[in-house]
């Protein structure tokens, strides 16, 4: 199979999987316990790494941009610069990449192991649809939790940036907060919250598809896991570009 055919085939498979998840939402059974469990694993479980990533990303942004802005005499706008960068791009993308590494790998490895040990077949043989029991709760939990994680990462990023501006460069707290408040427009907030929904869909679709299509025993599980993380990370970054362009076209350019 040549690479283009393979790509189109994989795209079709992931799209069909997500379509079946969507259709399945309208008929029972619904596994609410499993959904809550996945929200806990994906959301609460990923919170520490996402907060840490957000905090230090905000911090390093200020560390790198403050001297340049100071050179041009606009260092009072540091807060605006950090907040806009985080909310529009870095918050959603970095959170998605962290979740893709942690949860995408876990989903793919878990489903892949279940495939090679015949647990998926056993589930079907016992009258359960694995799509509803395993895939739907994971995809929905990702779609729900990733925007929340992104908001948390944004907040901690701004706190990280403020801390560096204040404790390393001696900028006044109030000046930084005022700059943040002035810099954020409603389209930034809307755009920054819409993106994670799509990233959740990408990570969930690719990871579940890769896990369920595992072949070749334990080596196959490893391959599926690598592919799930690599592909979902790449597609998050690629899709981010097109999504940003679409949001710009629909909501306007924003300030800065």
């Amino acid at each position, binding site marked *: 199979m040549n690479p283009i055919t393979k790509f189109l085939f994989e795209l079709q498979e992931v799209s069909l999987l997500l379509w079946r998840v969507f259709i399945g939402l309208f008929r029972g059974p619904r596994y609410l316990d499993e959904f809550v469990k996945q929200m806990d694993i994906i959301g609460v479980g990923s919170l520490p790494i996402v907060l840490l990533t957000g905090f230090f990303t905000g911090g390093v942004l200020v560390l790198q941009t403050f001297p340049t802005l100071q050179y041009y005499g606009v260092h009072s706008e540091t807060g605006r610069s950090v907040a806009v960068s985080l909310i529009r791009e870095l918050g959603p993308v970095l959170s998605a990449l962290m979740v893709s590494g942690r949860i995408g790998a876990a989903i793919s490895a878990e489903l892949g192991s279940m495939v090679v*040990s*015949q*647990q998926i*077949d*056993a589930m079907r*043989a*016992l*009258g359960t*649809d694995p799509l509803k029991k395993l895939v739907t709760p994971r995809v929905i939990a990702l779609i729900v939790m990733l925007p929340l994680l992104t908001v948390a990462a944004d907040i901690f990023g701004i706190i990280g940036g403020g801390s560096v501006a204040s404790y390393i460069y001696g900028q006044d707290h109030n000046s930084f907060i005022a700059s943040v408040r002035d810099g954020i427009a409603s389209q930034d907030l809307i755009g920054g919250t819409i993106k994670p929904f799509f990233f959740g869909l990408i990570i969930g679709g690719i990871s579940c598809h890769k896990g369920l299509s595992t072949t070749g025993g334990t080596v196959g599980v490893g391959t599926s896991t690598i592919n799930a993380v690599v592909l979902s990370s790449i597609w998050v970054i690629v899709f981010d570009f097109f999504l940003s362009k679409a949001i710009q076209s629909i909501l306007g350019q924003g300030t800065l």
Partner: protein
Amino acid sequence: MALVPEQVREPTAEPSLEEFNLEAAVDEPERVVPAIEFRNVRLAFDDKVVLDGVSFTVRRGETKIILGQSGGGKSTIIRLILGLLKPDSGEILIDGEEITHHSELDMMPVRQKIGMVFQEGALFDSLSVYENVAYRLREQGVDEEEIEPEVRRMLQFVALEYAIEKMPSELSGGMRRRVGIARALIGDPQIVLFDEPTAGLDPPTARTICELAIELRDLQDVSSIFVTHDMNNLRYLSSEYAVVDEEGIVSFEKEGERLCLINTEVLMLRDGKINFQGTDEKLRQSSDAYIKTFIHGK
């Protein structure tokens, strides 16, 4: 009944399944409909033909032992029955209902009628033994109060009630298979499929699993397919039967002691085709070189 008195039939005599069905049909007309029926089923993966025009029936209360080399399509038959695979052509009927073109949704009620014992047990790693065995009933929405005694009954049947709280990772290979059997049997399915349940097990544990299959066949009137390539399994299943005394104690007798087995047949696959179908006696008497090699190993 699955067994006939010895004075009526010689132990080595050819069983007359037509006669058996005719007698059964008078009492219970629904027994005429086979539990499982394959009609000219064909399946290929790319260029490799796995099943080529396979036709057979499994009658009610009958055990069909499927023999054949590894990769010869034995497990594929089981996956087709469960609807986990779809044939390229031909028809598959379960209890007279054609399931060949059933969707995943349509297959769910059919699968409720079937118990499946996987090669390695295929237990859910994240669930305890209790939760594994209770899985099917929980999915059906049965009350927990009704589930617990049923789970205990099934674990008693496989002599593993003491392991009810254990996790699958704490069980030996044989115990995992037996829990797999308990999980397959909960809800009392009338069809049970065994996919090489004794592969890689020590002889006494393998024997225990065969005894469970014999009990299901003779005491619970379960139709089953037993996929294996172990000739010891064939010997146990085709030469012994289970009886229960007034105190409910189950024992196993050799064919010919009191009764003659007529509810066990052998089907051998070779290169995707049925190479042999009949009783174990006919199999052993066969002059086919492949069958002789398979039986004697040389």
